């Protein structure tokens, strides 16, 4: 069996470090502060670009996300790991994706952004990361109790191609309808004129960054939820070491680029309601654990032909639309008008899925 260098300890550290370099550089080149990469925020921006929600400040068809899936797809094809599969409780996974996004948008970031916020000096990220670990810990209790959403089964090639093709289609839209200076729409796509959605690195830079990370992460199986889960469940440091590398390297790069600003108040695209930062990521962490991967990992698996991961991704995008349409998403002023209620419902859904899928006595 051929060895996979990037799946070794040093390989995963290298991949975490690479993301730690690329994300702050994307920020320097135009992406929002402490948001060089954020899978949840970027999927939320894509939902906005497509008009699924109409929050004017978060609308941009982020090329990084398309690159993640297409990069992972290319790597999977190149290394003969493209395995179309699916059929493991798709609707439950869709709901887990929605719940994950609702939790992430109460905190304002996915696990990657929580790490990048920490590396940028945002102390509120500590609460988010503590919540994330707590949610994943709850998930491990379900796994110890025999939790399973059932087996996936092999699917046809075309079925495995669905999500990579969707991303290729979105890329065509982005190329066909580029942003127009001073206009909030171009063709069928919406664009932010201010706020985080208006902060964007050049198209080719974003796309190249996404493709590089997509390839590296597919080969290394980089997963932030898995890092914490494996540490709790197996006392295994493998994936966790990639997360540590990401934070340390991003912190150093932020220091060099003058992007490190320690503190809790007035952090970019963040709020300081500690309890809700914690609870938001706790719900997200539980949803990621029950679905078997952090939002980044779900994109990379979708690129490998995993339809169950693809359904989770679609759930996250629709979850973002729901979060913004119904006032669940937070803003720098704090949680949205219905954020706490939304979080309670999302937690209830996760616990329901967890408790009703314990398959062993």
């Amino acid at each position: 069996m051929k060895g996979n260098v990037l799946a070794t300890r040093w390989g995963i550290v290298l991949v975490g470090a690479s993301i730690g370099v690329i994300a702050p550089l994307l920020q320097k080149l135009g992406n929002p502060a402490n948001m060089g990469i954020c899978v949840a925020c970027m999927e939320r921006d894509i939902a906005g670009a497509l008009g699924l929600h109409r929050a004017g400040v978060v609308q941009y068809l982020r090329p990084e996300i398309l690159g993640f899936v297409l990069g992972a797809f290319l790597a999977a094809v190149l290394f003969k790991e493209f395995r179309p599969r699916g059929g493991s409780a798709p609707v439950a996974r869709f709901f887990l994706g929605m719940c994950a996004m609702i939790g992430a948008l109460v905190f304002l970031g996915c696990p990657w952004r929580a790490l990048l916020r920490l590396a940028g000096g945002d102390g509120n990220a500590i609460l988010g990361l503590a919540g994330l670990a707590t949610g994943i810990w709850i998930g491990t209790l379900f796994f110890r109790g025999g939790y399973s959403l059932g087996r996936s089964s092999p699917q046809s090639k075309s079925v495995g191609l669905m999500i990579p093709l969707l991303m290729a289609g979105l890329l065509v839209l982005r190329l066909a309808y580029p942003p127009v200076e001073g206009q909030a729409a171009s063709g069928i796509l919406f664009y932010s004129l201010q706020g985080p959605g208006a902060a964007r690195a050049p198209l080719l830079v974003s796309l190249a960054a996404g493709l590089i990370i997509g390839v590296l992460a597919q080969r290394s199986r980089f997963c932030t939820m898995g890092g914490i889960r494996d540490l709790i469940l197996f006392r295994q440091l493998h994936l966790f070491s990639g997360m540590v590398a990401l934070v340390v390297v991003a912190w150093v790069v932020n220091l060099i680029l003058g992007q490190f600003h320690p503190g809790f108040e007035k952090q970019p695209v963040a709020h300081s309601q500690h309890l809700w930062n914690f609870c938001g990521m706790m719900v997200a962490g539980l949803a990621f654990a029950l679905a078997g991967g952090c939002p980044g990992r779900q994109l990379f698996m979708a690129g490998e032909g995993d339809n169950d991961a693809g359904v989770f991704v679609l759930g996250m995008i629709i979850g973002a639309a729901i979060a913004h349409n119904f006032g669940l998403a937070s803003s720098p002023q704090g949680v949205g008008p219905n954020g706490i209620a939304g979080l309670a419902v999302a937690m209830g859904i996760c616990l329901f899925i967890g408790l009703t899928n314990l398959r062993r006595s």
Partner: protein
Amino acid sequence: MADKTIDARGLSCPQPVLLVMENMKKLAKGTLEVLVDTDTSRENVSRAARMEGWEVTQEEKTEDGYRMILEKKN
């Protein structure tokens, strides 16, 4: 002939590793045959086996994934 066969095909993370770990602990020593469907599961199972002092003595490609043999002699 393996003492037990574990079919972890189609299971998402971390279930393949959990199943294998559970059986390695139960058996303490012997031979386990493990079936997985993805390279990620193959790598994760190998890593977990080595961590528990088991050896991966065989790995072969099958029609829908991999067949692995894990052994611990004493």
